[in-house]
């Protein structure tokens, strides 16, 4: 039969509805703190701190210079104020820029990991034990500032795939790092990117050699644990010609009253005919119901389709953080290259999100597709901000954008800021936008069929977000559906 009666891939997800219902009443369940001794830098930011971080990481001299250059540039910059978010001034001298769990760094094998840390990841539902791992997902876990361990390393190495922490990559693969680091997001790119370059402490590095199709999902799990700590990770993914990789990151943080800063940089490089699929399930602590605490998530993510026929696809499910400021972008340099952005951003209570994408069409016959779904509840504000740029040589560029907003209640806001710059008259750029409310009518209709309100809301929002959810790897689609329901707990009825 042509139309799938039981879209088998989605079927499990639907059976999860029961679980959704059970979890709907739970509060932020990742808000525990692990009692681990940490090795920290002194509070505040200056050249000494940067030297401290670099020394801790046993970095080569060129890396330290690179950091110091970024730092001196950062000092000349001003914090951007154009985003549709409000927050008190951040005191950059009141942040601890490096915190490492005190344990033997670089465990030779995963058994050497501190049992407390191991427990942390088990609580998060992430097991580092290779034999127990979800089949086909290799994980790199980053807690506070350092990478704890990477699973499935051996198996990946046989294919020539490098998947390790950024610190290790700097030591073991300096040529690759030197060539590509900050080639997509320059250290001068923006305030938070410059700050990240100066102080980043770890992150994941991933290299897929020519013609290799990575046989498993690669995944990084980030967790902020220590108090007053910023997390500044940096991820670099290089996909050589004809290769393919699917990568997923997940993030959580303990519940704390003060705000924590997270300023990450992600760079993706796709060569000719290569494809990178990058998925994010972001669930940093959003603050409490009154808007106290939560993570400031100021992230720069950008990929470049360097070669012809390259493809980069971003999929994000953003449910956490007090403030999200993030625009995963694609530079479409190669001819016939493709950029995609699929996003679901949920804001509840006093959360604020200003998120979207930039599609820079430079090559000929380049295509991009943007699907953004914003869900706002409580007193939150949710903005889509996107730029579609078609350069003067980008003949026959095509873009399709769709931005839909769903409102729950009447105290929240949804905003759309689409920017379109077209310098070549052969371009076709389409933009569609809708705003709707979860209606009493929809909920009553479900109720009348025997479906309780919380389940009804979960059905409605998952229907709304479906187009994006379908782009997530299966294992995470279920998790993401649950997250949507949890984030909107108590916002209707």
């Amino acid at each position: 039969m042509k139309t799938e009666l039981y879209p088998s891939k989605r079927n499990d997800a639907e059976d999860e509805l029961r679980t959704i219902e059970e979890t709907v009443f739970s509060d932020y369940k990742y808000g525990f703190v692990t009692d681990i001794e940490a090795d920290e830098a002194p509070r505040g930011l200056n050249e000494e701190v940067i030297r401290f971080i670099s020394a801790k990481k046993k970095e080569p001299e060129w890396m330290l210079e690179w950091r110091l250059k970024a730092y001196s540039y950062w000092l000349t910059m001003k914090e951007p104020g154009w985003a549709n978010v409000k927050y008190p001034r951040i005191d950059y001298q009141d942040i601890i820029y490096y915190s490492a769990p005190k344990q033997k760094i670089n465990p030779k094998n995963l058994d050497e990991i501190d049992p407390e840390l191991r427990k942390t990841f088990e609580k998060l539902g992430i097991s580092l034990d290779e034999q127990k791992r979800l089949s086909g997902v290799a994980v790199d876990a980053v807690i506070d500032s350092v990478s704890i361990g990477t699973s499935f390393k051996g198996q990946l190495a046989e294919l020539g795939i490098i998947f390790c922490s950024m610190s290790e990559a700097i030591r073991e693969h300096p040529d690759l790092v030197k060539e590509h680091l900050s080639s997509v997001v320059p250290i001068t790119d923006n305030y938070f990117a410059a700050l990240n370059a100066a102080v980043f402490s770890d992150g994941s590095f991933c290299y897929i050699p020519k013609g290799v199709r990575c046989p498993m999902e690669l995944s990084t799990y980030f967790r902020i644990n220590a108090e007053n700590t910023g997390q500044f990770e940096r991820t670099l993914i290089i996909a050589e010609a004809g290769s393919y990789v699917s990568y997923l990151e997940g993030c959580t943080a303990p519940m704390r009253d003060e705000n924590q800063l997270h300023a990450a940089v992600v760079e993706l490089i796709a060569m000719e005919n290569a494809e990178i699929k990058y998925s994010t399930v972001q669930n940093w602590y959003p603050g409490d119901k009154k808007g106290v605490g939560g993570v400031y998530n100021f992230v720069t993510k950008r990929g470049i389709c360097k070669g012809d026929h390259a493809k980069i696809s971003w999929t994000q499910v953003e449910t956490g953080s007090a403030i999200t400021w993030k625009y995963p972008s694609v530079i479409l340099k190669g001819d016939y290259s493709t950029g995609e952005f699929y996003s679901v951003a949920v804001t509840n209570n006093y959360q604020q999100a200003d998120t979207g994408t930039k599609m820079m069409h430079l090559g000929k016959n380049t295509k991009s597709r943007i699907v953004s779904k914003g869900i706002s509840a409580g007193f939150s504000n949710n903005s889509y901000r996107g730029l579609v740029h078609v350069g003067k040589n980008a003949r026959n560029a095509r873009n399709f954008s769709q931005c839909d907003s769903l409102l729950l209640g009447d105290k929240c806001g949804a905003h759309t800021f689409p920017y379109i710059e077209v310098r070549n008259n052969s371009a076709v750029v389409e933009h569609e936008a809708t705003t709707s409310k979860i209606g009493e009518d929809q909920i009553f209709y479900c109720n009348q069929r025997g479906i309780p309100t919380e389940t009804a809301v979960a059905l409605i929002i998952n229907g709304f977000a479906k187009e994006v959810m379908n782009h997530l790897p299966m294992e995470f689609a279920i998790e993401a559906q649950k997250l949507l329901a949890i984030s909107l707990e108590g916002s209707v009825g």
Partner: protein
Amino acid sequence: MLSIQDLHAGIEGKKILNGINLDIKPGEVHAIMGPNGSGKSTLANVLAGRTDYEVSRGTVEFLGKDLLDLAPEKRAGEGLFLAFQYPVEIPGLNTINFIKTAVNEVRKYRGLEPLDAVSFLKLMKEKMALMNIEQSLLSRSLNEGFSGGEKKRNEVFQMAMLEPKLAILDETDSGLDIDAIRIVSNGVNKLRNKDNAVLVVTHYQRLLDYIVPDFVHVLYNGRIVKSGTKELALELEERGYDFIKNETSAVEAV
């Protein structure tokens, strides 16, 4: 099965129902007719538990339970079904998934295990054949882009899947051409048995040519002013609602 006594209800402070009395027994089909604004849809919505409506007086007993005390989803669990006059659209929500969730929620309410995929599929195939509904319709998002006839057929299909004790059809004929009315009515008739009952709310007699009622009640100014057999519906068709209005005002004048 259903016993309504002296029911008064309204919306936003406006009184609409002014003392409804009605008894429905298993196996019966009742029709509520009346001019626009007489309170027909209000009655259907109050019975289904829509929260915008306030009940100020009266009782409703359904299968021995105080119906007004139950949340809408519990009323559904008890076996009450409302076929909506305007079924809502839920974009992105697959119709089959929606019905599966509904069926299993109702089963859960009744203390039954949820149907597994295979049993659900079997039940669905059976009802699809009975209702003459094609799968392509059910594979789409719930009611999204459905024609008027498709929406109503989907309502009756859901009714078949949920097997209610009492089905309320709220102006199911509105906006349908005669062929669609016939299809929808045939569906309803196939579901009738000695243990369930149907309450048909309609403005026109023509639906009652297909779903033949045992009793017809005329609603006017929020009250049942006349009850009779199916001949009453024909009389209304012939003479219009004016004769009821005139009779009623004559009675009130006395």
